[in-house]
């Protein structure tokens, strides 16, 4: 269990983290989401006492501050930036160094290196590591002390698809063992599969703290998809009852502002044959976009039009 209270951090005039308080429960994966620069990494660093914030904010890991835990790697495993490695100290020696401060046996070092798939490269120097390899070493570091709590900042960064899949399974199984997992990521489809709880921030502020389904419901409107041979007739019926309707790419009707049972009831009472009636619930990605749209700081420009698309009438239509 992690309890963060009143975390606050300012860099000059920018408020990176503004009075964040939340709890991370054991037994589930808690995702930490937010746009670039919203303060996720800073929050994690504050929680670990790496950065010093202002005011009374503090984070307790099972009731203890990180900086007062003796041999903390056995309690809290962390992965922050990748590549925090001495370029000429081998992976094995890097872990041996950390292990020596935490009373961790040598056998465990080889065990975690094999676990993350770095076994064959463990005597190689990190200067020759790819991003994914450094990331795996970071994970090995987090798992080294077999901790009850994991804090991972974008652990999937740089991992290949197999690695991402493996990571998801690993984190889910660790959570199922009753551990506390707090993980930030920008891969929302992964998060949707993996996380049960969310902490969502924007510009250092809390936007949402609760379970994933609730987040999606709160920040999106789910729609109803209808296919019918008598679509045109049904549109006027639905519109008369206050639904808004758009036509999908495949000619299906996408109905919003009306519950699915109401749509079904109307079809029945009006005698309109339906080929499909289904609910389309929004994805975590859509919810994230709508929840954090206003809090986004670094907004990219739309793709630049090429000369060709700008000139041809066809291109213009698409644009």
């Amino acid at each position, binding site marked *: 269990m992690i309890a963060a209270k009143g975390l606050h951090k300012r860099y000059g005039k920018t408020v990176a983290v503004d009075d964040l308080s939340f709890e991370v429960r054991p037994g589930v994966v808690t995702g930490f989401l937010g746009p670039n620069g919203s303060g996720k990494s800073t929050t994690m660093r504050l929680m670990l006492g790496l950065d010093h914030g202002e005011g009374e904010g503090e984070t307790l890991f099972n009731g203890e501050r990180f900086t007062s835990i003796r041999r903390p790697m056995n309690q809290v495993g962390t992965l922050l930036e990748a590549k925090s490695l001495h370029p000429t100290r081998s992976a094995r*020696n890097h872990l041996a160094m950390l292990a020596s401060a935490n009373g961790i046996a040598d056998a465990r070092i080889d065990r975690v290196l094999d676990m993350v798939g770095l076994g064959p490269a463990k005597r190689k120097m990190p200067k020759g590591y790819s991003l994914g390899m450094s990331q795996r070493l970071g994970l090995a570091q987090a798992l080294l002390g077999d901790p009850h709590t994991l804090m991972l900042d974008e652990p999937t960064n740089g991992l290949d698809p197999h690695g991402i899949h493996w990571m998801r399974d690993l984190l889910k199984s660790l959570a199922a063992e009753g551990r506390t997992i707090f993980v930030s990521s920008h891969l929302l489809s992964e998060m949707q599969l993996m996380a049960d709880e969310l902490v969502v921030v924007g510009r250092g502020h809390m936007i949402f703290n609760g379970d994933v389904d609730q987040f999606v419901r709160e920040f999106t409107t789910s729609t109803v998809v209808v296919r019918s041979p008598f679509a045109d007739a049904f549109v006027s019926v639905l519109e008369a009852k206050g639904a808004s309707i758009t036509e999908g790419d495949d000619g299906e009707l996408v109905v919003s502002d009306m519950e699915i049972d109401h749509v079904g009831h109307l079809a029945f009472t009006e005698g309109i044959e339906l080929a499909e009636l289904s609910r389309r619930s929004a994805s975590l990605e859509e919810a994230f976009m709508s929840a954090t749209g206003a809090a986004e700081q670094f907004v990219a420009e739309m793709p630049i039009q090429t000369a060709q698309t700008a000139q041809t009438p066809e291109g213009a239509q698409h644009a």
Partner: protein
Amino acid sequence: MLDALRYEWTRLRTLRSTYWMAGSGLVASAAIPVVLGLGANDEPLHADAVNLSVNGGASFVIPFLAVFMAVVGIFATGHEYRHGTIQPTLTALPQRSRLILAKILTVTALTSVVTLASIAINAALVLVFWGEVPGLFDDPVRSALLGYVAHNVIYALVGLGLGLLFRGVPSALVVIFLMPLIVETLIVGLTMVPALAWLVPAVKFLPFTAGAELMLTSPANFGPAAPDFGFFDRWASGGVFALFAALIIGAAWILFKKRDA
């Protein structure tokens, strides 16, 4: 605290530069008795010559071993920032004061051991060329060699403090090379300009110049035009150097406790 010491020891041990620096220091120091032995082994050995040969020229030219060990000291703190390892370090060992103390103790121990090894190697070389090492265990050579060990330890700790203060390697290296070799030499030189004679009493407080007093068997010779600088005695001069190291480490320590990693 034992955990922190184990950590620091493993850190030093798994770093190639530790071996390079200590090895280079030993070799550079050993070169002095070899050169002297080849050129002047028929001349009788007096205390100054024994001292100079055994401390590898530290009291006369450049304290090679001290400089190399200062680089080890700089790396002890500077590398953590240069390579970002401060972050895994502090997640493995979040008690910052313990970490600094462990760094100080391991660098001190390593520097003492390497310096004693260098003394043994050089004494053996003197024995090879001259067949004897007269007065090695008697004053003034004995005190001067103890002073040499203290000098190297303090030098290395200045490096450690600078690496932590600047949170990096290059600026600490610049200071540790520039300050004794250029800044202090310049100040000592300027005292010989009559108009700047008021600088004379300050010289005994120049940290590296005072530190060199630790290693002497006879008064330092700054040339015929040099005034009398009125140095403190060996151990008090060493105290000036140690105080300088303590100030740097103290400032760096206080900042380290407050700063973001």
